[in-house]
């Protein structure tokens, strides 16, 4: 395949960036999007140019490191697919592909396509955990978990924290991320003792990080490589209302 790329290049957090055009001939349709960028980078380095910086790690769709706004869609055109699992056969030969970093005040650009997503980690630190006494683990069957609750918790726990929901949201809201973490623990018996405190702290941290609010565009659910449902946001709001009414004074 012969492609033309328009890639966001920005030397540092403080530098001004711009879209730079690259010619990318001889690209195999079986390459992943990241492998295509590897090839482009090798060619850049052979010429003595700076390679394009982008985040990646497992390259099998489970770590949440890869990102990229590809042709105006978070993780590109394939539904339920992270950029690392997106293949070049999803594009047309001769196509011009725009590649931009996630855009949000809470996700400052570090370099080129790499953004700082530690705001999501701080939301987790605020309450995305259960407090358990240490010691010998009890029998796993001692706590009964209804099948429906286990399924709902697992669906929410599929969130890999990539930030595509923030990137796709016109409000740059982290509601889907925060809601999935709250749902994942809140559906299970182990998550109940801290359920109210958790939603209050995590929502508070989400707003301290200056993410936008949810206006239910639905873009996050479509962009999510793990297909997390916006039902989790409705659940988060319900939990937040109940917790706010009972725990605050």
């Amino acid at each position, binding site marked *: 395949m012969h492609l033309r790329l328009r890639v966001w290049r920005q030397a540092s957090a403080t530098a001004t960036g711009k879209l730079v055009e690259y010619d990318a001939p001889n690209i195999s349709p079986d390459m992943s999007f990241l492998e295509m960028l590897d090839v482009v980078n090798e060619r850049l380095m052979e010429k003595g140019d700076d390679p394009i910086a982008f985040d990646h790690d497992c390259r099998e769709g489970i770590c949440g490191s890869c990102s990229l706004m590809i042709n105006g869609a978070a993780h590109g055109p394939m539904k339920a697919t992270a950029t690392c699992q997106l293949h070049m056969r999803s594009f047309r030969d001769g196509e011009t592909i725009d590649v931009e970093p996630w855009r949000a005040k809470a996700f400052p650009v570090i370099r080129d396509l790499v953004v700082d997503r530690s705001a999501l980690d701080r939301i987790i630190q605020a309450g995305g955990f259960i407090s358990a006494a240490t010691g010998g683990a009890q029998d796993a069957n001692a706590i009964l978990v209804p099948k429906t609750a286990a399924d709902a918790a697992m669906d929410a726990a599929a969130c890999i924290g990539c930030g595509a929901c923030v990137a796709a949201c016109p409000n740059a809201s982290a509601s889907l991320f925060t809601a999935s973490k709250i749902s994942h623990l809140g559906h299970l018996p182990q998550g109940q003792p801290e359920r109210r405190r958790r939603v209050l702290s995590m929502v508070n941290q989400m*707003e301290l990080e*200056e993410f936008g609010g949810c*206006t239910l*565009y*639905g873009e996050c659910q479509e962009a999510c490589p793990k297909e997390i449902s916006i039902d989790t946001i409705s659940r988060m709001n319900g939990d937040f209302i109940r917790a706010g009414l009972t725990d605050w004074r």
Partner: protein
Amino acid sequence: MSRALRFYRSAIGKKVVMAVTGLIGIAFVIAHMTGNLLAFAGPEAINSYSHFLKSTGELLLVLRAVLIVAVILHVIAAAQLTIQNRAARPMGYVDREPQVSTWASRTMRWGGLLLLVFIVLHILHFTTGDLKPAGVFSTADVYGNIIASFRIWWVVLFYLISMIALGFHLYHGAWSSVRSLGLRQPSPNPLQRRVALAVAAIVWAGFVAVPVAVFVGLVG
């Protein structure tokens, strides 16, 4: 008080205010639209309905106060959320393709602003009578006011455009308000909004029926 303030300070709290005031608005437009249809039953029907509403005295005042407060809170919360949401993305994308968001959801702010202008003009037109596009106004003859006004093409056009904005506003709002309040049960297709579509279509059709019927001469 501090609890209410703390609640309102969060974006979810503001969305709850928007949802509750929005649902009050939805209940009101359904009632208003139903009352309007009495125009098809003739002058006595709608004039006596109007007389009945005015005869309720304090109750009518309370209802009006609730509606005005609801509109004010809805607008203030919307403005604050808009500022917050814009600030959350200081630098936009060069290339951004909306994937599933509806046109209705993306026009809530401008459509809402149009509706606010409409509400003010509409009250000046049919409630206080300060605006007289047809030159006549009588608090006792609602039917006459309707007939005189909706024979004028630009009055009809303004009402039609405003009602399209209302229809789109309801198509998103009737669905999203319930979700903002956390009242929606999990659904295999959360973006589906059959009830909101029905609410929007019925309210739109009901409101549009009277001006169009008067304009084409079916009523009056």
